[in-house]
């Protein structure tokens, strides 16, 4: 192995890879928080197996002088924690990747293309401190040292991070991080690695959030008072987040016995007058589908967060995909209106979840927020979330004597009363019903009720969140995407540096923005990018615009797109033809 060469970078991608249980997640948290507190831009993304111990999991942490928010294949530093690590990330190791780690973790057969390697006896140092368990903290220290984080921050940070642990454990972790930091500083001073990242005091003031927290904060901003769900990766983070806020925000969070109960509880809570939501993933959502139809029939608001993961069935429980768009779109028997949002980034996740509550309430319909494992687990700094007017729009009315829950109105929206608020009586019925919610087989009335429910779509369409065009408006090539691919496509386009390519990102996928066709028609070449196998959004676009986007960049191996991959795929498509 050659001695590492000096290289200067204003951005570095660090990958830590180890078995489940080796504390990779802890390192991710420590590094992201500590680096961000030091004023560096950070982005962390993880891929992990559905197991509690063993296997191979990895976390990428990008550290930069400028904002970073997407997954890269590139690895500048790789810290392997176990023997299988190099094999696990083999395809991403380049001639420039520097491997830091125990000598015996590098496989003896040199077929592994490790060019640059710095021996750090993590295990021995950890044993001297008190056990192998400290390897991860030493590694965190090494990274912080090589980046040049101020040493004085470490002790307090570790103290705070492990505040619930015993003094002995805290002391040993401090010793571990300091030891690692020393090594990192030595490497930095030796010139084997040279980073030139600048920190900025502004970053310190920003938020550091993952997708689950962004959805959870959006729910609080939207007035969420009730969440019932059944744990399911990767959506559970939202339930965990809201559980932690239960006391401060007066939210009821209940772990239901199953997803069927979860959505029926949420609808009940909503009927009772509390803003409510569920959080789930594909398989769990499949169990909720009769409930979606119930919300449609009862005209009772409910927000449904689906953190997508690959299916069918159990699929790849801890991995990512955008393959439940059609499930959300067509879920629930019968015909009734709905709205489907697909946040592109954490800011969207916050603001669209809030909006979901307001629109669910306004139109008395189910509103979906579609994320995925990649977005949910992405951790990054972003400008402090702006709290819009949290005097949330309430659409509940005080009832009067003779109140009719399903009064036929011109716009299809009947004033919504709740039981125990006013002098009226509030009934809701899953059967076709009359204006007072009583069961009916009056078929003339049936038609009126269907029309009334669907009529709401007219108003809903007037406030569709338009897609965001990134790049020049006189584009020749238009890349269309939705949901969590926002940042990765953006960065890929920056990398390509072609002014004739723009990116049209949809945050609301249904109802589809009415000007979609105009955007597509303007392009000489249309390309669609989706984290699924059948271009589900492409099919939706075709349905509503008649336009077939034949050039597709699709990925469905369970992993998110990387910046390099998107750039290469676009080049590959465009390389074949003249625009």
């Amino acid at each position, binding site marked *: 192995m050659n001695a590492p060469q000096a290289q200067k970078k204003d951005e570095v991608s660090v990958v830590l890879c180890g078995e489940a249980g080796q504390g990779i997640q802890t390192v991710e948290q420590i590094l992201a928080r500590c680096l*961000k*507190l030091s004023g560096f831009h950070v982005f962390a993304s993880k891929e992990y197996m559905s197991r509690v111990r063993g296997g191979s999991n990895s976390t990428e942490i990008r550290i930069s002088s400028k904002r970073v928010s997407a997954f890269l294949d590139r690895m500048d530093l790789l810290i392997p924690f176990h023997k299988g690590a190099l094999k696990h990330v083999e395809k991403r190791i380049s001639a420039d990747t520097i491997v830091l780690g125990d000598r015996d973790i590098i496989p003896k057969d040199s077929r592994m293309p490790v060019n640059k390697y710095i021996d750090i006896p993590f295990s021995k140092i950890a044993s001297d401190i008190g056990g192998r368990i400290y390897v991860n903290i030493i590694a965190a220290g090494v990274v912080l040292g090589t980046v040049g984080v101020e040493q004085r921050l470490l002790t307090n940070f570790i103290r705070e991070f492990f505040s619930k642990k015993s003094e002995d454990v805290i002391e040993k972790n401090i010793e571990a991080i300091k030891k690692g930091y020393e090594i990192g500083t030595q490497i930095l001073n030796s010139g084997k690695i040279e980073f030139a990242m600048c920190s900025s005091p502004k970053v*310190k003031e*920003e*938020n*550091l*959030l993952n997708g689950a927290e962004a959805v959870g*904060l959006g729910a*609080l*901003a939207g*007035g969420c*008072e*009730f969440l*019932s769900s059944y744990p399911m990766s990767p959506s559970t983070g939202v339930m965990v987040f809201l559980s932690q*806020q*239960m*006391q*401060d*925000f*007066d939210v*009821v969070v*209940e772990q*239901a*016995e199953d997803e*069927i*109960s979860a959505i*029926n*509880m*949420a*609808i*009940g*809570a909503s*009927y*009772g*007058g*509390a803003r*409510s939501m569920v959080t789930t993933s594909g398989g769990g959502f499949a169990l909720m589908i009769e*409930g979606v139809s*119930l919300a449609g029939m*009862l005209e009772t608001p409910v927000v449904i967060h689906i953190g997508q993961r690959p299916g069918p069935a159990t699929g790849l429980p801890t991995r990512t995909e955008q393959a439940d768009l059609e499930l959300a779109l067509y879920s629930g028997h019968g015909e009734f209106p709905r709205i489907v949002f697909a946040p592109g980034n954490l800011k969207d996740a916050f603001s669209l979840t809030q909006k979901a509550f307001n629109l669910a309430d306004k139109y008395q319909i189910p509103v979906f927020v579609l994320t995925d494992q990649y977005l949910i687990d992405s951790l990054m700094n972003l400008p*402090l*979330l702006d*709290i819009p007017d*949290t*005097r949330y729009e309430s659409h509940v009315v005080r009832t009067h004597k003779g109140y009719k829950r399903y009064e036929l109105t011109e716009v299809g929206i009947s004033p919504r009363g*709740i*039981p*125990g*608020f006013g*002098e*009226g*009586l*509030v*009934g*809701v*019925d*899953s*059967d076709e019903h009359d204006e007072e*919610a009583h*069961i009916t087989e009056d078929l003339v009335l049936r038609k009126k009720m269907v029309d009334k429910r669907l009529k709401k779509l007219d108003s809903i369409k007037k406030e569709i969140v338009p897609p965001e065009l990134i790049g020049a408006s006189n584009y020749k090539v238009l890349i269309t995407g939705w949901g969590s691919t926002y940042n990765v496509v953006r960065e890929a386009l920056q990398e390509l540096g072609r002014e004739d390519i723009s990116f049209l990102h949809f945050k609301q996928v249904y109802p589809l923005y009415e000007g979609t066709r105009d955007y597509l028609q303007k392009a000489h070449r249309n390309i669609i990018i989706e984290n699924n196998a059948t271009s589900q959004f492409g099919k939706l676009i075709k349905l509503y615009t008649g336009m077939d986007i034949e050039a597709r960049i699709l990925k469905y191996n369970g992993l998110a797109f990387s910046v390099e991959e998107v750039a290469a795929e676009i080049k590959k498509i465009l390389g074949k033809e003249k625009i």
Partner: protein
Amino acid sequence: MESQIFEMSDIDIAWCPGCGNFSILKVLKLALSELDIKPEKLVLVSGIGQAAKIPHYFRTNFFNGLHGRAIPPATAIKVVNPDLTVIAESGDGDMYGEGGNHLINAIRRNPDITNIVHNNMVYGLTKGQASPTSQIGFKTPVQVKGVFLEPFNPLALAVALDASFVARAFSDDIEQTKEILKEAISHRGFALVDIFQPCVSFNKVNTHKWFKENTYYLDNSHDPHDRGNAFQKAIEREKLPLGIFYRNDKKSTFEENVGVYRQNKEPLALRKIERKNKLSDLIKSKR
């Protein structure tokens, strides 16, 4: 208060003449009016089936939801507004078959709701198939050789889970059923009331006469706080006991446990939400 307050004018009832549901409808109105519970403060939650149509013959608030799913919304309605009296009511197929998991977990959760189950040991609305409580040997167009599944025993299940109130009634006995319902509705915590109800169209075995002959009332010697004894009574098969089998008045309710009412007694659903400052602090803390 007169039970007239719950009457609806001009309704077309879908039950067969002689159906036990009529008595249950009448008794429930009587019990509620004697307890002075006003229609505006009551919510009837039901699923699907003949019994589940009860809210349509009742002047009050109601949530007629999905088959088997009356308990989850009832639980949620109560927790967001504890000022309301919430009754989840449906048939044996709905509560014990389709919704069995919700019953089990509602007992564990212990919301202060009353769960009334019309138990006629047969499926009525789908025309005569076996229900979870159908007796062994009961023949139907589907169970052609007779039911061979062990009948579901809701009372034994509830006592085994230390449910806070467990009772069984018989629809023909207006007075006794009314008293049981009054106790159940007044009880703080989850109250299961299984009501035997003859199905005149699809159950020719468990008739008015059969129930009369095969049931008896628990007398004063039965201590409803004695769980072991309650379980014994619940598994009796020769003659089926009626009355209050078991009660545990010491259990805290779901509403008390969730935390939103520890300091503020105002129903969650009626509170004005003011979060701006708290949310701003929370966002700032995530740095």
